[in-house]
């Protein structure tokens, strides 16, 4: 878990520094606006209750910060919240491109490489390239040199939800001790083998089971997992249609 989570996007220090910078700008702008508000033509609020309310707000913030300080799920929540503010102000920096490249090896075996991605207005590289083999198992008369592609989909879902759970729990001041998941997807081979046109190729559904040990009640833990689904990219990709373009050209 700790390894998985400098943050959900896996951007580490770069996003952090970006958000710090933008955050500073944001606050400078905000303060400038606040100063304008204080001019006679634009009072912030003539309401007498205001100072009391502000105090209350600060207290709430302090409590939340205090609570969060004792909790460590290995997530840099300040960076994420800072990034959220920064990317709200600079929406073009939020545009990312994720990439993979692959090469067919032999039979059903393909080797894929994940290395570069684009975001925050520039190119980035992972700390090192990651190689991922996919293949089919021996019962399909293949050599089983890697997980099947559909299992990789489950891996993606689990990785995404796991990162989300750690992040949401951190944000809610919930210390995680253990998060274990099993995923199972049903599939009728009559689809991909072309036996029955009414059967789809893909999963007929995915069942995800979590066993979580954390400093929180059952409903709070369930709420963390529900929120993680709500904010998960892979969950969204699986539950909603996605447009796919495939272009082909013959090598020169």
């Amino acid at each position, binding site marked *: 878990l700790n390894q998985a989570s400098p943050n959900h996007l896996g951007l580490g220090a770069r996003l952090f520094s970006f958000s710090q910078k933008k955050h500073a700008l944001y606050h400078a702008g905000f303060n400038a606006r606040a100063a304008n508000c204080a001019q006679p033509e634009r009072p912030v609020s003539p*309401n007498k209750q205001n100072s009391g309310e502000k105090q209350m*707000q600060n207290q709430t913030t302090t409590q939340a910060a205090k609570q969060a300080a004792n909790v460590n799920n290995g997530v840099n929540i300040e960076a994420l919240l800072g990034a959220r503010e920064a990317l709200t102000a600079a929406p073009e920096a939020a545009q990312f491109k994720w990439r993979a490249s692959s090469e067919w090896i032999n039979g059903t075996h393909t080797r894929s490489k994940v290395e570069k991605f684009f975001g925050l207005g520039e190119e980035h590289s992972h700390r090192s390239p990651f190689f991922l083999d996919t293949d089919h198992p021996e019962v399909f008369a293949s050599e089983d040199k890697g997980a099947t592609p559909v299992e990789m989909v489950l891996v993606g879902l689990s990785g995404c939800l796991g990162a989300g759970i750690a992040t949401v729990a951190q944000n809610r001041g919930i210390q995680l001790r253990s998060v274990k998941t099993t995923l199972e997807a049903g599939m009728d081979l009559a689809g991909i083998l072309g036996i029955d046109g009414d059967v789809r190729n893909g999963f007929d559904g995915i069942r995800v089971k979590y066993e979580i040990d954390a400093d929180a009640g059952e409903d709070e833990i369930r709420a963390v997992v529900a929120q993680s689904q709500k904010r998960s990219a892979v969950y969204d990709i699986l539950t909603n249609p996605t447009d796919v373009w495939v272009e082909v050209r013959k090598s020169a």
Partner: protein
Amino acid sequence: MIPKVGKFAAKSATATTTGAVDVIVIGAGHSGLAMSHCLTEQAVEHLVIERGSVANSWRHERWDSLRLLTPNWQLRLPGQAYAGTDPDGYLTMPELIQFLDHYAARMTAPLLTDTQVSAVRPEAGGYRVETDRGDWWCRAVVIATGANNRQSIPACASAIPAELVQETTLGYRNPDPLPDGGVLVVGASASGLQLAEEIHRSGRPVTLAVGEHVRLPRLYRGKDIQWWMDAVGVLDERYDEVDDLRRVRHVPSPQLIGTTEHRTLDLNALTAQGVRLVGRLANVRDGRAQFSGSLRNVCDLADLKMNRLLDRVDRWIDSTGYECSAAPQRLEPTQTGAQNCLEMNLANGEVGTVVWATGLHPDYSWLDVPVLDRKGVIRHEGGVVDAPGLYVLGLPFLRRRKSTFIHGAEDDVRDLAQHLHAWLGTASAGFHPLKMAV
């Protein structure tokens, strides 16, 4: 003809304006009328401009069977509270219109009805308000045109087969004009559920597309849920106290219905009547509607959130020692079925109508002041808009969680009327050229 507007009718600031006034309130719904009441209390010179008649949206943009979601005892505006014989009931639209007509009849400020504002733009240290019955100049503008002017319809609507009828919550009155056959209702807030039930009961089988929603029991431990939310303090939570203002301002309206039997209308109630639940409408492609596989999760989220609120009510009862003989209880979790439907053919004649209950948003097409963000949302701090002398009312969580309820207008309007009064006092009063001319 310009309606009689008291002393302002005689004023003529320039050759091109009808008159000048300190404040113009745009909209004579409950918020605008409440603002007029409070400005009058503060002796602020103002007039109210209304495109149609008092309570125009309530009069012309609601369905026939609608009753308020809030009980009558909660209904009040500054200076007028519900005084009828059924405090626990829920007003029908004609009853509400009567309540607002009565309120408007007591106002002393001029009210220009049947006057459409076509533009508001900064001019000479104030604002020029252009209407189809002449232009006005004022120092401050209060936008009380409401949060619900336009239906938010997803882009995939354009791919819906042309032979299907498309209706919105603003245009729907009752099921009678709808073609026979199935109906896809998109959206699961109060309006989506109420329309789904009414249309299904009319003999047109309804499929309800359910995204994120807010589930609430009508009654809890013997009292209306609004009573508990009021008592516990949920409705009074302020915009400057919440953790994530952006999020709470986008929370859909709760699944509630006002009926004489005080019943709960939730997804389980609809399923029991035969309505089919599907996930959020994700896309329409090749004549087929595609639904998200997230139905279970959005229902779980709503159940968990509802139970957190009920936990809070229980804790409040325990900690205050409030006498309540009814024991805590929890509703059945939302039943979503073993296998969710992910696709529906819209082109085979089974479905005749799509009803968009996908939420509403304000129309600022007439507002020529640079105060909208890139999403078209007005920039404001608790109703004080990011332009001098410009105010907005009645938006979700404007200043408090109750801001969009009728009774929620009072506190917001009092705060903002006070702010406006102070602003008029500090802004170089009496030195606006147009003002000087009158």
